[in-house]
């Protein structure tokens, strides 16, 4: 029992990974694709939660970096390059650089100002993608004509096979999540939590709050950019609507739905989100209105989110019995 407690996270992670690896073998192709999208959007939501749940910064522009990553991959692959990994690296670097420039301005303010400013700059990126026709193809988007195949041990797999796409996305997402887990458990991650709790106190003991925030912002931007690159490969296309604030609301909603205080909350929220979307888009096209209608009761009655409330409930129960 002690052993289980000690390696709790590792055991959970291995179980989760085993589950995700097994999924495409037991599911129809359509659901494999949905699962791929859940992983990508979940990663975006987790990048958002590094800022919101850990650092206490509510960013409404995360879709901007996601979109920048998607366009970076699309532009890189349209030059004729056949390297998948370099395409993704382009997304990561583009996301990080954009986040560094915008973050440099944003981290000067916090709370509501941060939300307003990130929303503004996020929409600036949208405006650029939407109007700079020569670079981005305007509202038509930028298609990726030839998605390069995946090379594993000298064998080539086409990403047009949903199962191959799924495993490719799963491995990239797993690496990113592992990295994020290392980040939030590091001394640096604890400093971020300290910023959320009391930034004044932290600056009194000599920490550079702005630099810490900027670093968190750049990490979140790089992860969001990577997720965007994956999204571009998944759709074989980058479109401007993924930079719009309507899209930025998705990671926000997923995080709030799942629970912002929990590392895997956003991923859980993403799964619920897509489940709901499947149900609702069968009924109506106007999906945003339902997002709003779901968000209101969650904010008012379940501020911990669904997974958060669940875990909280289990913890209080076990405490009572022991």
């Amino acid at each position: 029992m002690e052993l289980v407690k000690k390696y709790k996270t590792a055991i959970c992670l291995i179980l989760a990974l085993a589950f995700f690896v097994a999924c495409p073998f037991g599911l129809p192709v359509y659901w494999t694709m949905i699962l791929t999208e859940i992983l990508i959007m979940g990663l975006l939501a987790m990048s958002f939660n590094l800022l919101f749940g850990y650092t206490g910064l509510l960013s409404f522009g995360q879709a901007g970096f996601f979109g920048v990553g998607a366009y970076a991959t699309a532009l890189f692959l349209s030059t004729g390059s056949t390297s998948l990994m370099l395409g993704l690296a382009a997304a990561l670097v583009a996301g990080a650089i954009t986040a560094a420039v915008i973050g440099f301005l944003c981290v000067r303010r916090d709370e509501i100002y941060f939300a307003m400013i990130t929303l503004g700059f996020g929409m600036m990126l949208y405006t650029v993608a939407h109007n700079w026709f020569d670079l981005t193809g305007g509202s038509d988007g930028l298609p990726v004509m030839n998605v390069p195949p995946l090379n594993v041990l000298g064998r080539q797999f086409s990403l047009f096979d949903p199962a191959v796409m799924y495993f490719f996305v799963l491995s990239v997402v797993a690496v990113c999540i592992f990295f994020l887990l290392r980040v939030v458990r590091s001394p640096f991650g604890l400093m971020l939590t300290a910023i959320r709790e009391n930034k004044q106190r932290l600056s009194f003991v000599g920490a550079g709050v702005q630099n810490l925030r900027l670093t968190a912002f750049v990490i979140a931007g790089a992860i969001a950019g990577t997720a965007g690159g994956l999204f571009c490969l998944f759709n074989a296309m980058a479109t401007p609507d993924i930079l719009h604030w309507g899209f930025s609301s998705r990671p926000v909603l997923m995080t709030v739905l799942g629970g912002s205080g929990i590392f895997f909350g956003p991923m859980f929220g993403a799964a619920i989100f897509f489940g709901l979307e499947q149900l609702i888009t069968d009924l109506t096209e106007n999906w945003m209105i339902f997002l709003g209608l779901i968000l209101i009761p969650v904010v008012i009655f379940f501020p911990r989110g669904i997974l958060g409330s669940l875990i909280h409930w289990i913890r209080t129960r076990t405490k009572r019995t022991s």
Partner: protein
Amino acid sequence: MESFVINLLNGLSWGMLLFLISLGLTTVFGVLGVLNFAHGSFFMLGAYLCMQVMHIIPSFWLGILLGPLSVALLGVLIERVLLRRTYGRDISFQLLLTFAILLILDDAVRIIWGPGYHVVEPPVLLSGGFTLFTRTYPVYRLFIVVAGPLIGLSLWAFFQFSRWGKIIRAAAMDREMAEGIGIRVPLLFTAVFALGSWLAAMGGALAAPHQSLAPSMGERIIIESFIVVVSGGMGSFPGAFFGALILGLFESFGTVFLGSAQMAVPYILLAAVLLIRPHGFFGREV
């Protein structure tokens, strides 16, 4: 000279609309401490409701009276039923809540009135144009240039001199103290939120004959009014006025000198303010 005057008037009329929106945003924040993300949607709703009233009774003045009034009533409802439950919690919950309202209202407008454009004719009194040098310029824009500061000034006088205005300022400064001396703060909050919604909707109704109505009209104005209040200083009257004026003029003259790069102007302004004076021109906080 001619194009200078025309750009000046264009900039002033857009700036005054921005001023009305930012005023509502800044007042609600100053008193309730809530940043209303749905403020742009109230602006849009004001314009659409004004149009709807004019479909039934073709009078612009009735539309501009009833449209904003119904949005103010909606504001009362939202504050009473939803927003009230989140006071005292972390500020991000209020942001998320108003963001949810934004999503609902934007889609609701799209469902009710369709995604296309609508046009509202200005009233007979203010329609047509007058000759400015060699060109004709719409009278209605001049009306906005005059109406904006008038509404702003009367609101300022209300806050500065009237008994109610003083009560509101007292509650904004110290909520507990105000409650201690017998001010009914919850009621006051509802009233102020309604006032903010009314201001946004009034801006929308005034903008209706000035621009075409579309479900995305709230989007541009809310982002620009965020920029206005961040650069002017949140909660500051003169900040909202000068911020709106500067942004309106920059944008109008930007079209002349920058062409299509004009769309970057608001963001450049925001970046500049954040670099030079992160708390805004009139911001006071530490």
